[in-house]
């Protein structure tokens, strides 16, 4: 099956139809489609996207908006130049979501990084432990409420 850019675009149309009520928002940025979804369909929609030709998981990261965590998956393809930024909101007091390691093995280290720095729990991850910080470090540094006596807030304008 020859995969090309038109088939990648068609994949976006297909998932739009299939998950119509669980997709909260789709918009186009410069060369990425930004898709906001509900957490429940993460594993299915990523499997459909992988089958359609999006075979590169470039990064997994999170943003701490003060009332929730927004997970961002950067999904790209070696068949075309467009990509997808898949965004999932999860509540701050119970931060957990399914792991996509079974779909893209690259997610292994990226999800460990998000666990290390944000404290988000990835269920079914084969090896969830800290990757940058020592194993006995307490706290999750990239959260907005993480403080340390050495941290000094710099002025907001110059």
């Amino acid at each position, binding site marked *: 099956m020859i995969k090309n850019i038109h088939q990648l675009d068609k994949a976006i149309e297909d998932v739009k139809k299939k998950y119509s009520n669980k997709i909260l928002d789709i918009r186009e940025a410069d060369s990425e489609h930004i898709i906001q979804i509900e957490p429940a369909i993460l594993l299915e929609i990523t499997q459909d996207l992988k089958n359609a030709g999006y075979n*590169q998981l*470039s990064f997994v990261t999170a943003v701490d908006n003060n009332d929730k965590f927004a997970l961002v998956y*950067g999904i790209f393809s*070696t068949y075309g130049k467009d990509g997808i930024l898949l965004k999932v909101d999860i509540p701050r007091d119970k931060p957990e979501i399914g792991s996509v390691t079974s779909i893209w*093995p*690259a997610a292994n280290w990226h999800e460990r990084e998000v666990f290390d720095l944000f404290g988000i729990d990835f269920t079914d991850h084969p090896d969830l432990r800290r990757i940058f910080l020592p194993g006995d470090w307490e706290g999750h540094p990239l959260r907005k409420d993480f403080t340390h006596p050495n941290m000094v807030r710099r002025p907001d304008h110059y």
Partner: protein
Amino acid sequence: MLRTEDIQINMGPQHPATHGVLRLELKIDGEVIVEATPHIGYLHRGIEKIAENRTYTQIIPLTDRLDYTVSMVNNWVYASAVEKLAGISVPERAEYIRVIMAELNRIVSHLVTTGVNGMDAGAFTIWFYCIRDRELLWDLFEMVCGARLTHNYIRFGGVSYDLPDGFKEKTVELCEYLRKKTDEYEDLLLKNYIFQKRNKGIGMLSKEDAIAHGVTGPTLRASSVNWDLRKNAPYSIYNRFDFEVPLGESGDNWDRAKVRLDEIRQSIRIIRQALNSMPGGEFKTPGVPRTLKPEPGEAYSRIEGPRGEYGVYVVSDGSAKPLRWKFRSAGFSNISVLPLILKGLKIPDAALVIGALDPCFGEVDR
């Protein structure tokens, strides 16, 4: 009664052959590696957390220190993401200057890696030859921005200074010199019988494994996947230049070294074309404020660096500091395949494989 057991040893963070601070926990049976677990984080400086406390312009020197051998490329990917976020345009001359600087950085990085590949296998001469050539390239960077390593040269909307007089002639002379030297290094290193014996068939990475683990850059192209962002997802003005993308055949260490040397030749072609067709004009869009306050939103931008795909994801909440700043580093994904490809190799081969995958721990650990 005689019995054997596996020994667990540490190829620790301080080691002359791991090219940075990497701890490899090896389980060995005699001299053969049975299992390898990499541990990283020894150079973690919390740059992403620091960036949440700096204005957008103050983050540019921070990006220098990520992949510290190729500062121009790091600066460029960050500036490109913020330009998307804030809608700043870049004049033609600045695009050409950025391309020339990035390609010169690519030559620097590949020269160092070639020297390192030789030094790991015991050939010290090639390392000194490559470092000598790197000094000549650093002279060029010092002419342009005053610094040899951490350049801090790219700004939002262009570059910080114009090219000085004499830069074009010196670069053309250096390109001619490097073209001859690349042929010499190929004869000296890649055609050497001992280097071939130590590298061919070692560290094989298949196409499917490479894509599945997020590997990018020369390592991916050595596994014969034709994917180079400069050709397949062109950014800036790369679609105006005529160059090829070298591919390997079998995905072993020798192919990675060959791909990198060929990429030096292609970079020389791009630099020559850019110097010939560079227009005059402004080198920076006027009117970009020193304290930039972009509209709330997000942007992702990616470019092809010497080690792979670099990307910056930046989220703005309307204030002078970013809400979140994330750097997608190539080395992080590239060395995640180490547990896969080190099985069955001997301990000295592990040093060669790490050198050929070419991580830079400034960007792996951030």
